[in-house]
């Protein structure tokens, strides 16, 4: 469910879930380069998985 989340982002809160962080680390993906789709823009595993898929995608399929 994706509702709510219309609140100010926490100034000193990490903007990624812990699992997303670990996953990004493994693939050398900079969390800050991703657009989070979670609450207050938090980066979730789904966002990282999509980034991984983009990395792995053959060049010609990139629009």
């Amino acid at each position: 469910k994706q509702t709510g989340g219309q609140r100010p982002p926490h100034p000193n809160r990490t903007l990624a879930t812990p699992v997303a962080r670990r996953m990004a680390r493994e693939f050398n993906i900079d969390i800050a380069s991703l657009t989070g789709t979670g609450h207050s823009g938090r980066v979730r595993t789904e966002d990282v998985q999509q980034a991984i898929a983009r990395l792995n995608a053959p060049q010609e399929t990139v629009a």
Partner: protein
Amino acid sequence: MTSTHYDIAIIGAGPGGYVAAIRAAQRGAKVAIVEKQYMGGTCLNVGCIPSKAMLHVAETLHNLSSVEELGITLLQPPVFHMDKAVAFKDKVVKRMTSGVGTLMKANKVDVFDGLGSVDASKNVTVTSNGNKQQFSADKIILANGSVPFIPSMPGVDGDKVMNSDTCWNLQKTPESLICVGGGVIGIELACMFSALGTKVTVIEMLPNVLAPVDEEVRKLLVRIMGKRGINIVTNARVESIEDVDGQKKVRTTTDKGEQTFSAEYVLMAVSRRANTSGLEQLMEQGLDTDRGRVRVNERMETNLPGIYAIGDLTHGAGLAHVASMEGEIAADNATGHDAIMNYDVVPNPIYTFPEMASVGLTEAQAKEKYPEIRVERFPWAAIGKAVAIGETEGFTKVIIGKYGELLGAHIIGPDATNLITEYSLAMRGELTVDEIEETIHPHPTLSEGLREAVLAAEGHPIHIPPKQSVRAR
């Protein structure tokens, strides 16, 4: 008071429908709900709530057998009166169902008593005692729920053959009972009747009862049920029910040939089917269904525009909290918001003795899906609170993925159904084992076992001996 047009009309006031009604009303919609039988649906009247009230009675009765150890002497054995227990259960049900009525009023939801029929133009006809009322709505949410599925076989409609709709008002404890079906409902009711003093036999067609439950957890439960005197027969197909000398005689075919069982009562609990009464017109108009259940997308939309469906009507989860969450999602979408139902993290509570609960994958499922998993378990016997309350059977089992994420968790033991929420929250919030480990768990509580299971999976549990190969963090 009632009107001829509504923003949203809801069919069925079970935990799916009434929650959808409240949420939609809170979103500012003008809402009607139609209920043909009882506010609160299966769950409050003949499901979750009466079963948990009776299980509470059963557990209390069962615990009386071990009070001597605590220094409490009962000079005479306790006497159990089924009729009074049923009266207690009725009081609980009454309180909850009338609570739903109050909530409808408080949220200004119009309640229509009667059978609701719907068409694709979103006209609703409510029939009650031959009287008809009609209104239309911009959006419809179908929450018709489910009913017991009774397979046709000789004797199934006989006297003293009950199902989960009809087993709640016995005035005497059955001497003996055969439960046909070893799914969650069958097993819960078997445990309940057993603890109330009934000699129970469970007959299951498959090789295992509770097939979807993690194997290790299931095996322990089956062993405990055996110790409590419940006879579990698997690989047995019930063929007929006969009356012989005032007993019900259940004939089965098994891999070892024919076997028959006798008892005072039979309880049919093989499965449930979607309740499509009132949906005949919609089905003619093309409502998409799949093996009798209404098909929906993750926004809870059916294939017909503006018509949503939720709960037991739609799929086989058969869980009240899933119906309710779907109700919230459907109401959000029907009021112009945007919400998506996620089925990855659905806790599954099972009210046996001891309780079981799980969330996420079983070990077998996880092994198939992920190459690198860690699986570990932590026994209740090593938790001070469990020892202090004398409930040490069982364990907590976790399945951890390579990012330290919980893939699945399974608890068998005291309070399992409450405890599973910690793991559910961790999974939904995408926390890793590190956050669970860093969270101070209060002492002495059962929740300590959940942290310890994670520590065990990480190779450094505190309250059980380390494994041969202790892994440094």
